[in-house]
């Protein structure tokens, strides 16, 4: 008799994987440990997620949705940027996952709600042309990922200096000046 499918298993696996990324980082995430924490077996895990890479992509989608929940109420790009920098300092493992997958994510049609929201701010509030908004949102992502990564290494005062400098740059992006 086949085992009863467990509808909650996929969620339990993703929760466990995210927990592991928060605790030990992306590089130390193993399928065996994910299975153990989700109270399932490694073969069952591989049935759901073909390989480690498949699981990590699912986490990227999950993180995109989670980040979007944090920023969806923000009314401006500086506000949104501050929220994302705080999110990245709270979850350094998630920051690493995002920087590893971000450029490849851009080349797929997977959802990128945070990027879309940034673009929307550039177009609607700041009257950027759509093509310019696309580039501006990418540059913003590079600024935020770069700043968050450098802040992680810095002493508190230096980290704050980096954060302030990045947020000032975002405010400047919002001014109407022709380059």
């Amino acid at each position, binding site marked *: 008799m086949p085992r009863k499918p467990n509808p909650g298993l996929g969620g339990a696996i993703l929760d466990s994987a995210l927990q592991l990324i928060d605790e030990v980082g992306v590089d130390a995430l193993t399928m065996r440990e994910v299975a153990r924490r989700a109270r399932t077996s490694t073969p069952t895990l591989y049935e759901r997620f073909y390989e480690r890479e498949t699981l990590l992509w699912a986490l990227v989608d999950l993180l995109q949705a989670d980040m979007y929940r944090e920023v969806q109420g923000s009314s401006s790009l500086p506000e949104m940027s501050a929220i994302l920098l705080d999110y990245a300092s709270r979850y350094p493992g998630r920051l690493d996952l995002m920087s590893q997958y971000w*450029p*490849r994510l*851009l080349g797929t049609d997977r959802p990128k709600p945070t990027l879309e929201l940034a673009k929307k701010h550039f177009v609607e509030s700041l009257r950027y042309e759509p093509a310019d908004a696309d580039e501006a949102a*990418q*540059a913003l*992502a590079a600024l935020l990922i*770069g700043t968050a990564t450098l802040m992680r290494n810095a002493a508190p005062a230096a980290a704050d200096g980096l954060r302030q400098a990045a947020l000032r*740059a975002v405010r400047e992006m919002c001014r109407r000046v022709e*380059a």
Partner: protein
Amino acid sequence: MPRKPDPNLEQSIVEAALRLLAKQGVEAITMREVARAAGTTTPTIYERFKDRDALIAAVTDYHRDRLVSNLTSEDSLEVAATKFFDYCREHPTAVDLLLARIAANIKLRKRGPTYDIVRHNLMKVDGLNPKDAEEMTKATSAMIFGTALLVSKVDDRAIAREMERATCKMMRRLVASYKN
């Protein structure tokens, strides 16, 4: 009797490590492999370099110095960033080392030569006042660092090029905005 110090030995050790880095990446730099490639012995390498980290630091210095030698005091921010991206593309195995050096400098509250060049040029070439130049150097260093980090994670050259172009364009816009 102690052996005569060989003034070229240190250089040939670093050169051997650089060849290993270029061909196989940083993991290939082990004291044993470097000794073999430099035609010397592991103990001799340890006489010159305290440990592997010290050797890696010398390798990083080499790339940093070459990168800096490409920059001039006439480069606008955009030109300097483009040179950095070009250097990363031409030396993909050195990117992690260069980025780790930037992060380490921030941790040690040290300013590397590229930071000083960017700050200087933002004042002299792009015409910013010192306070704005200081703040913009931090933000643009982070943006250039972030772009190089992201580009190093993707094989698709079209996506990489797009990210670099987006960053350069934004820097032009920012310079104009800070000046006004």
